[in-house]
């Protein structure tokens, strides 16, 4: 806290502030427009209809499942990408990040040609008696496909910024890689992992295109909240707007949970990709305990 003596530099050119207001409006104005369109008199009946509750429940369940899947699949991948050294590593990273920029409908087609009846794995799955298309499993797969990069990127950032000092110390003290991973690496990357998981959950919640293309749309089975909104819009714009607001509210809650709490994940840095700058205060103890 030596810097206290000097005032931190806060000069921002006026035109930059002006443009910042404009850019905030780009995001806030459409959200305000949604709120302004809500038919408040019928809001409760609209969002508690059977189909709406089915859709919300399905969205929450599938997003939770895909987040879990993202963690299970994403942690090893991020670790290998951040720490490993093998040919085509950069190529693999680019490929893994592809769903971030891919139109979701392309993701849906890709999944269809992988897990569909006539897809790459279709024959093998059929032999095993597994049918994925038109099932809730298909929704979870579609969500995992689009959300996985968020977890991998967050975590890889955390791993790179965190460095490998503590792990190295633990290893010199005789801890095998498995123990180092469990007792040192994992606690260190926990904040990065948590923010990555939150982002994956949020992305899963909003998944639309891949689900529509790959999973179909059936109440209680594959029709998640975004699909329900898209369908209601055909006949009942009021219901579509009300449900949109529910989705916005859930998204706000998720983001607030991750970044809004004082002393929450904010600590880890300015950006979700920023990774963890946190050092274990009990690093010495951790080093001593690895055995």
């Amino acid at each position, binding site marked *: 806290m030596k810097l206290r003596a000097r005032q931190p530099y806060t000069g921002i050119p*006026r*035109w930059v*502030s*002006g*443009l910042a*207001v*404009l850019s905030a*409006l780009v995001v806030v*104005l459409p959200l305000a427009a949604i709120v302004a369109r809500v038919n408040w008199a019928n809001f409760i009946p609209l969002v508690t209809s059977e189909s709406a509750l089915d859709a919300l429940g399905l969205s929450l369940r599938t997003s939770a499942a895909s987040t879990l899947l993202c963690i299970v699949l994403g942690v090893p991948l991020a670790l290998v990408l951040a720490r490993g050294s093998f040919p085509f590593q950069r190529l693999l990273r680019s490929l893994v990040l592809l769903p971030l920029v891919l139109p979701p409908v392309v993701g849906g087609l890709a999944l*269809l040609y992988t897990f*569909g*009846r*006539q897809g790459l794995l279709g024959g093998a799955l059929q032999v095993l008696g597994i049918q994925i*298309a*038109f099932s809730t499993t298909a929704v979870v797969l579609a969500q995992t496909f689009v959300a996985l990069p968020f977890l991998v990127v967050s975590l890889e950032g955390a791993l790179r910024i965190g460095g490998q000092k503590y792990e190295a110390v633990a290893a010199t003290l005789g801890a095998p890689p498995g123990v180092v991973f469990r007792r040192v690496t994992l606690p260190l990357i926990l904040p990065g992992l948590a923010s990555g998981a939150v982002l994956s959950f949020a992305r899963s919640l909003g998944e639309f295109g891949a689900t*529509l*293309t790959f*999973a*179909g*749309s*059936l*109440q209680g089975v*594959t*029709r998640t909240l975004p699909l329900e909104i*898209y*369908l*209601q819009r*055909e*006949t*009942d714009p009021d219901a579509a707007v009300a449900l949109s607001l529910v989705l916005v509210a859930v998204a706000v809650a998720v983001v607030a949970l991750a970044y809004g709490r004082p002393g929450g994940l904010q600590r880890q840095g300015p950006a979700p990709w920023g990774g963890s700058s946190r050092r274990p205060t009990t690093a010495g103890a951790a080093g001593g305990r690895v055995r």
Partner: protein
Amino acid sequence: MKRGVTTAVAALVLAAGLAGCAGSSAPAGSAGTSSDDAATTLTVFAAASLKSSFTELAETFEAQHPGTRVSLSFAGSSDLATQITQGAPADVFASADTKNMDKVTVAGLAEGEPRVFATNTLAIAVPAGNPARVTGFQDLARDGLRLVTCAKQVPCGAAAATVADKAGVTLRPVSEENAVTDVLGKVTSGEADAGLVYVTDVKSAGGRVDSIPFPEAGAAVNRYPIAALSGAKNQEAAKAFINLVLGSDGQQVLAKAGFGAGGQ
């Protein structure tokens, strides 16, 4: 602080200016409509199922009316109706059902009575070779058969429900899609064993799907109305285009695509 407020106000004015600009140009969703020369461009909003036939008719129209360019915008009828009631600059609206045309007439935006120019009926689409051996409407209720239909909220789904009602068959689709093209996609990719689509969709899919006609389809006939819009900049051209669609040339093109005759 005061300076900050001034800046914020300036930004708001700038934003309002941008919004103003956006308002005067073509609204989103009407891709393909340009307002380069309003006097010689006829903008036609048409249901997605009319794509191939109206594209052909637009060429015929341009050949018959040198100097007039036809700009076509295809989308779901309910999307188009929403765009028109929100002020999209269209001259002619061709809807795939009367319900969406009603939205436009109720808003007082149609010029004269809409006229029905075509009809469409449902057909069962199955993947090429008919792997699940579907032979008629009753088969669609078979256990283990993967049927895909439209959701009841969209015209093709409402038609499917009507037909199933009349036939006394309970359909249990594995998916209820938003658009008939999505149903067709699930059939062409082989994911679904059967789908309920329109006769015209089967035609446009070529050899990728086989079609099984069924007599119960007569219970739900979709009527396609067309109308000139009161906001049309060129009423003459709009009326001429509608006459082309209703006339023998238009009816021939539509029949080729699988549509039933309208003309009432």
